[in-house]
């Protein structure tokens, strides 16, 4: 058996770790959602009301 194969099995996430990671993912999703709203509002303000008056 080579030395590489003798390495101990590394520990995996515990249920508590998984819960923390889930909370972190939810926070990231909220930030990304807020960014979408942020860019939408800023685009409207930068472009002005004329953005709604374009020919279809």
């Amino acid at each position, binding site marked *: 058996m080579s030395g590489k194969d003798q390495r101990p099995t590394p520990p*995996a*996430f515990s249920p508590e770790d998984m819960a923390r990671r889930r909370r972190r993912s939810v926070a990231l999703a909220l930030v990304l959602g807020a960014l979408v709203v942020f860019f939408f509002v*800023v685009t409207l*303000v930068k472009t002005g009301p004329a953005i709604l008056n374009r020919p279809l």
Partner: protein
Amino acid sequence: MSAALDRFDPRSDGVALTSTGEAGDFFELLKPRVMFLVVVTALTGMATAPGSVHPVIGLASLLAIAVGAGASGCLNMWYDADIDAVMTRTAKRPIPSGRILPSEALAFGLTLSIGSVLVLGLVANLPAAAMLAFTIFFYAVVYSMWLKRWTPQNIVIGGAAGAFPPIIGEAVVTGEFGLRSLVLCAIIFLWTPPHFWALALVKSADYARAGIPMMPNVAGPAATRRQIVLYSLIMAPVAVLPALMGFGGLIYLVVSVVTGLAMIGLSLRVLRVTEGEAATKACYALFGFSILYLFLLFAVLLAENAFGLMWALPKVIG
């Protein structure tokens, strides 16, 4: 449990791939208290600028500036994790305490740095974005990587990074760098040495253990105390300039004179009281009051310029 969810890379001798740090830990990397001060000073730069900006654009710009400041704080914590670990004041920060991996902090800081500069460029203008980029570079590279471990003048020169936000704020409004924000920048720049050296006098053993050449460790406590007084004596009159230049009103004049005198008085106490518990108290009193001092100056300027509370004074300079 699936191998994909393993916390450690099996090929790398148990080196962690990802941490279990939560959103709050990442937020702590941004140095929220510094961010708050940056928001106040940048907003004051915007409020005192000759001109106006759409409130949404102003708010979006302020957010970008705050995130940029946070990003530089994050990069600072990434680079300084080794010395943070040996200092009592900083040992509980997210990286030395193991809640966040250095690689995560680096990626987070770089992403926010690039993102905040791009957003400010798109939302406001190029000069403001360029100044934000320079500020992040100055704090993360010039101060953190170069000055901090090399010279006792680290916080004097590095303090410029903390002094730039009013200039960015004015650039958001005018697209240029004007004299008013330069004065605000000078106030913060001159405020930095008395503020940090008051703390460094108390924490000099901590800094010595970490190998950081702070002024008290290199030049000695007596020389540091003299320099604190010197900077306070220069800072207090400079802080009155906004009133003399017409963008600070009567309230600002009174507040800047009274609190400036208090800063000088507390600095003199630090100079006189050099032994025992009383000396520590004198240093903490100056450190604590200096935060209130800077906050008051900018809050009053902000109230006068943004909320119409200005009792205008005759313009003496500029």
